[in-house]
């Protein structure tokens, strides 16, 4: 898969010249901190006194410490619910938004709005929606004679935050799918119509196979986002003293490092997270070779 124009001759010099500032930033900013994180994951370090060698203790703790295991299970559960949710719903929304209907740009804006709104502010609004005694959602349920649900209590909080995170990500997913959908030549549909294919057939036989590159890309992005998800989750599930009722790995990394002076343990968690994402990415690329259709 090759996209765009290939740089030729003198252009190559300019290419590198223009990329240099970014590459230097990457080299010192990203690569440096990656190497530092790997080294620190084998150390006991409280930031204020020199680090001491700890061997694999931090990695052993990943499997022994109940709290670390809980945050890992939460992240995996969250990802398993979030990724399919985002991909399916934003594809569905994109298909709807790809039709010639009145005020489509208004709807597109509405779906994209969460992406440009502060997560902290919207999370506060969601808090009002989810409230057990004062929330709008339970008010509606009670109007229909249904018992109120404690949305943000421990047993439901995971689903509640997944819903909010999906809601927040539909906009960006929709944009990606819309780009993919508009690239499908109209003739395919016209030909299918002449052969008597209905909308259902058209979607599954033409649209779906031809947007697989977008689905692949969106799944990749959604997975990375799922592993990094933090803001909505923390705002909706935070408890006193910086605790969360749905602690995810990113949250746990932050807390171990900055609140509990355990930078070594936090680094090991970061490596663990990276390793899981890397394995998933390898799996996705394997799937890509088998199933993704490029024109």
């Amino acid at each position, binding site marked *: 898969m090759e996209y765009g124009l290939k740089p030729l001759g003198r252009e190559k010099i300019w290419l590198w010249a223009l990329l240099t500032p970014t590459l230097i*930033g*990457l080299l*010192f*900013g*990203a690569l440096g*901190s990656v190497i530092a994180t790997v080294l620190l994951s084998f150390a006991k370090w*409280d*930031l*204020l*006194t020199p680090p001491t060698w700890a061997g694999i203790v931090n990695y052993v703790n990943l499997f022994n410490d*109940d709290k670390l295991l809980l945050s890992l299970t939460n992240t995996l559960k969250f990802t398993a619910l979030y990724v399919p949710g985002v991909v399916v719903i934003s594809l569905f929304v994109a298909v709807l938004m790809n039709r010639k209907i009145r005020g489509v740009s208004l709807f597109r804006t509405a779906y994209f709005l969460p992406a440009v709104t502060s997560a902290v502010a919207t999370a506060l609004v969601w*808090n009002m929606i989810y*409230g*057990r*005694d*004062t*929330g709008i959602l339970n008010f509606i349920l009670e109007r229909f004679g249904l018992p109120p649900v*404690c949305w*943000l*209590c*421990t*047993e439901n909080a995971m689903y509640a935050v997944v819903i909010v995170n999906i809601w927040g990500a539909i906009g960006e997913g929709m944009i990606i799918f819309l780009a993919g959908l508009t690239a499908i030549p109209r003739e395919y549909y016209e030909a299918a119509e002449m052969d008597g294919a209905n909308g259902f057939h058209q979607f599954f036989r033409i649209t779906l196979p031809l947007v697989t590159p977008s689905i692949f890309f969106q799944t990749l992005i959604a997975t990375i986002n799922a592993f990094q998800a933090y803001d909505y989750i923390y705002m909706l599930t935070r*408890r*006193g*003293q*910086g*605790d969360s*009722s749905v602690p995810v790995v990113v949250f746990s990394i932050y*807390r171990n490092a*900055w*609140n*509990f*002076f355990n930078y070594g343990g936090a680094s090991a968690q970061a490596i663990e997270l990276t390793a899981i994402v890397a394995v998933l990415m390898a799996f996705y690329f394997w799937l890509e070779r088998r199933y993704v259709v490029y024109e």
Partner: protein
Amino acid sequence: MKYRLLVFAVIVSLLLTACGGTVASQKADITMMMWGDPAELEVWNKIVEDFHTANPNITVKVDVSDWDSYWTKLKTLLSAGTPPDVFAMDAPLYLDYQSRGVLLNLQPYLDRNPDLLKGVYPQTLEAYKTPDGMFGVPRDFQTVALFYNKDMFDSAGVAYPTADWTYDDLRNAAKQLTKDSNGDGKIDQFGYSLDLWDFEPGMSEIIWAYGGDLISADHTKTLVGEPKARQAFQFLHDMMFIDKSIPDTNTLSEYGDDAFLAGVAAMTAIGHWVVPGYAEVNFKWDVAPMPKGPAGQATSVNSAGFVVAKDSKSPDASFEFLKYVLSEPAQKRLAELGFACPVLKSVAESDAFLKQSTPIDHKVFLDSLAFARMKPVFKGYDEWSSAIGDGMATIWTGEAELDPTLDEVVKSADEVLANNQ
């Protein structure tokens, strides 16, 4: 991308700070860093202005962040070797820093100024004492008292809390003040409310009043699972789930975690720090001392203080500033802020503190020192108290049983203590 940019910005700013401030001369430039809100910054700017007038050779740069960013920023600057000269410290976290050798020992300076701490409440100095001397001084303190909504007491015909109240009196009054006024089966006025996150405010006070304790003197054993502490927890648990006079924490979160401020709880236990915020409410309220338990009356005292970085290039100027913070004019400014109690006795007992704009019985907070106990101070406090607070969270939402959960909590808290030895 945002993250990468941030890292880059941090590196650049660290480089810039490292290049500046190396010029040594008669004149000293010091940086003072603290947590606080805009109102606090305004008062501290005034204190610094006064300080500049008194010490024209020293320039103080004030740097204020919110609580969370403050600690992150402080740790980053300390590890980069470019700490602020003077910075604010929360007493329970003091040993986390002192034990790691990043603070300047102030003892030689204090020995040269033997009168400096004479007028300061001795209870507020305890937290800063170590076998090697004091590495910090308090600037203001907080004791926990019982806040009550006068309007709710009046309309229920219940007598206001007094200094002789026991926890049974509190429970009875709370029962009478708990109401479902529109009859929809949901309580819309609670008698008492506690946020139940940390020991302070509300939990350590009742544990001590019942004769229990939080942690052994050598900080190796968690004591909140012992019978007397358990009784205290059971008492609060009964109020919450039998009398239903305390909102559980799920309900509480719907009221912004402060049911008293929201006007749905008749009483709460909290410190003086809420006074400026509570001044805005549209109901009448006042304060009373914490009630008595079977083992007597108890409350907690905690302080915020200042420390000097060991790597400070101007330790003398920094100490001059600390001296000024403990002087009458500076302590008066702090009293005007109305946030905390001044540590200087002469100012705390003067009109500057007692006759603040919010007309409540401010003396209660000073009198409470007579039966106040120190919020624990030891290395690893944050992690230990979080292990307990997090572990007990499901008890206070009503999802977990008190006794077995408490057993688990004590076990994990003891593990934290062992790791921090």
